[in-house]
């Protein structure tokens, strides 16, 4: 199988990534480094190019220029090795509606050629609190259950890097909290998570580091505290109140325009 990546603390390294659709330059030199085992949020407005970045990193789309390595493998020249190391959870819960929850898990386990597909499915059903619904068709699941099943499917084969593209879009607040808890547990277990979101509180709550994608570039990247420090105190009207991520985001985005 694949050779293990060189021992490094970097799970994802992106440099000068560009991508255009016709005349529209969606990515205009994206640089990003994600540490192993961290949750890194990629924050941006709708259409900022977050999904484009994720699709390039998960080998679904070719970049026009720049380089990107995931788990030590170049996405352009070693896509098969990258695919073996990652899992993608797209914007919509990509589950098979006609199959049951258990069958969905077994399907992915078989395709990942893991040893005991049924055993793996059972474990994940328990871990994601889906045992009662295991033999119901996924079409009958609530939004939160679908997303849990979706994430459970992504964990089969122990990927070292997980891409979560807007994992809580369209979920109710309770389901959102469930998904947040799941993501936090994953990172605690050593999985690297690159999370795209347009919800500022999600990034603030979950991420170790936050990168803001705007105008095709990363305009800020750091911990929440780093980002807060970007705002000069003189511009803060209420000095005793710390700026929220929303304040930082809007100030940066405005500044760029």
């Amino acid at each position, binding site marked *: 199988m694949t050779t293990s990546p060189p021992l490094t603390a970097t799970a994802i390294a992106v440099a000068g990534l560009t991508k255009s659709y016709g005349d529209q330059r969606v990515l205009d030199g994206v640089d990003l480094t994600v540490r192993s085992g961290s949750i890194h949020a990629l924050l941006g407005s709708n259409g900022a190019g977050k999904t484009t970045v994720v*699709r390039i990193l*998960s*080998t*679904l*789309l*070719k970049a026009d220029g720049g380089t990107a390595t995931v788990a030590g493998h170049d996405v352009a020249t070693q896509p*098969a090795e990258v*695919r*073996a190391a*990652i*899992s*993608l959870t*797209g*914007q*919509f*819960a*990509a*589950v*098979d*509606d*006609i*199959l049951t929850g258990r*069958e969905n898990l077994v*399907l*992915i386990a*078989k*395709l*990942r*050629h893991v040893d005991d597909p049924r055993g793996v499915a059972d474990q994940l059903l328990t871990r994601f609190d889906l045992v009662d619904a295991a033999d119901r068709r996924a079409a009958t699941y609530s939004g939160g259950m679908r997303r849990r099943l979706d994430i459970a*499917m992504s964990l089969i*084969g122990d990927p070292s890097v997980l891409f979560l593209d807007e994992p809580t879009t369209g979920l109710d607040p309770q389901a959102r909290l469930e998904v947040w808890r799941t993501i936090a547990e994953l990172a605690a277990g050593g999985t690297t998570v690159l999370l795209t979101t347009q919800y500022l509180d999600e990034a603030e709550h979950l991420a170790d580091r936050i990168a803001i994608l705007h105008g095709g570039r990363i305009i800020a990247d750091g911990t929440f505290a780093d980002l807060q420090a970007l705002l000069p105190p003189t511009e803060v009207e209420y000095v005793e109140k710390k700026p929220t991520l929303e304040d930082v985001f809007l100030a940066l985005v405005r500044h760029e325009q």
Partner: protein
Amino acid sequence: MTTTAHLSDTTTLLGRSLRHISRSPDTIITTAITPIAMLLLFVYVLGGSISVGQESYVNYLLPGILLITIASGISYTAFRLFTDVSTGLFERLQSMPITRSAVLWGHVLTSLVANAVSLVLVVLVGLLMGFRSGAGVVAWLGVVGLLALFTLALTWLAVIPGLTATSIDGVSGFSYPLIFLPFVSSAFVPTDGMPTAVGWFAEHQPVTSIVNTLRNLLAEQPVGDDGWIALAWCVGLLLVAYALAMRTYRRRIS
């Protein structure tokens, strides 16, 4: 990726879509129902006024009806593929360490199985209506082989709208011309009664040679040139459809 891995991934995905079919048998029934209705309508309502020589009209008509069954059956391949693409399952599979084309092959093989079941249903109704054939094993193998080849060719054609359609209407729309093609062929009436231009088209379009071949195989008659022409059409269509489908697929994934 090794051949064994490809086979095992394809088998896994074939199992998945066969399970879809077993849970929605209506896809097989709706595939068979229109051809069966046509069979009944033409044999019992219009057939009395159609002269096809010595043969019974149901024997004459069945081969064309089988092709119509296939033409309507393959639209479900487009539909299932479209569903995978629009739910994101297609992208999930493409981002996994599997043989990527296994996703398409799973759907294509499923189409062969589903169409075979629909065809058997139509033939059974034909038998009830008096269809008889004294054809031997070899002739039947020829019939099955030609139908399989035709199914395969049209299925790869169906892959294209399955991958590119933007709405569910676009997916089902593409098969209508295919269903109508047999009407302008020797499937329902002999071509010599048609006006010159129409007759010329009917004689030179693929359905006529395929229908004539199937009909002769079932009636224990020599197949003649029609057999080679039918084979050439099926293989040619298959190669073109496969090449176009793979090109569409490669564009879709890069």
